[in-house]
């Protein structure tokens, strides 16, 4: 290792101890804060403006903010992993499982592209969004989600690096083709499994 900055650690990021060996993916550090990383301007979407549409299934389905809140919600406690090497343990979210939403879309093809306000997009196979692995969340640690963290509603797919959980989610485009999203087109991995360190496109 080269030059070490004394005192840069501990406070914000630290290497997990051996007791967390099975819980923190390789190459990750524990974060105490919640860093904000963005590829564009923070989107300020009001709950009145917000809606979510699933296109590409046999039925097109759309929910407003009120529709979403009327659906049965789950409390989720999960670890999140950012490709920039921080991991945050035991984050608490409230939201609706994608299973519930996709059930309204009829028969669906194999791949999904999450589309956000502001033009962000990220892709995953639909099978990664079903089976209790993904949610549309609208509360973080008991509070409405701040705009810089993707509120009012963002995707949460904690089994993948966090760029696979789109902030300011607006639509889900389903198709038979796996189309790359923003970072996938810019050199990041199509699948993004933190346990296999799938960071860059050919990792």
């Amino acid at each position, binding site marked *: 290792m080269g030059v070490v900055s004394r005192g840069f650690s501990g406070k914000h990021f630290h290497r997990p101890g051996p007791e967390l060996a099975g819980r923190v993916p390789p190459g990750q550090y524990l974060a105490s804060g919640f860093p904000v*990383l*963005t*590829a*564009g*301007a*923070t989107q300020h979407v009001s709950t009145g403006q917000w809606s979510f549409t699933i296109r590409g299934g046999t039925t097109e389905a759309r929910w407003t903010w009120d529709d979403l809140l009327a659906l049965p919600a789950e409390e989720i406690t999960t670890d999140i992993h*950012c*490709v*920039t090497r921080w991991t945050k343990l035991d984050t608490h979210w409230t939201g609706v499982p994608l299973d519930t939403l996709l059930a309204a879309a009829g028969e669906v093809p194999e791949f999904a592209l999450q589309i956000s306000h502001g*033009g962000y997009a990220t892709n995953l196979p639909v099978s990664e969004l079903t089976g209790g692995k993904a949610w549309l969340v609208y509360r973080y640690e008991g509070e409405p989600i701040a705009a*810089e963290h993707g509120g009012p509603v963002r995707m949460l797919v904690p089994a993948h690096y966090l*760029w696979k959980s789109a902030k300011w989610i607006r639509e889900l485009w389903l198709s038979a083709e796996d189309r790359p999203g*923003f*970072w996938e*087109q*810019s*050199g*990041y991995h199509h699948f993004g499994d933190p346990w296999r360190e799938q*960071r*860059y*496109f050919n990792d």
Partner: protein
Amino acid sequence: MTELDANSAAGPLTLLFGRDVTLAVGICAMCGTTGPLGETVMYGPAPGTVLRCPQCSNVLMTIVEAPDRLLATMPGLRLLSVPTGGTS
């Protein structure tokens, strides 16, 4: 407005091109705005550096710094004119 860390893409750009290109002039493929790369709006550097058109926010260029390589795209540039110091 939230104040962020001061940002500049000059480092990643210099790394990619091997010389300063903040004076290089680009044309936005979306809206046609023409101007030096030094005038673009930069986000990043993590997970990657994103240069956007100051007029229409179109993504002009992305640069991702992996430990062993640079990954670069220029999806929104119709043209990039890089001065070489020669005379015309």
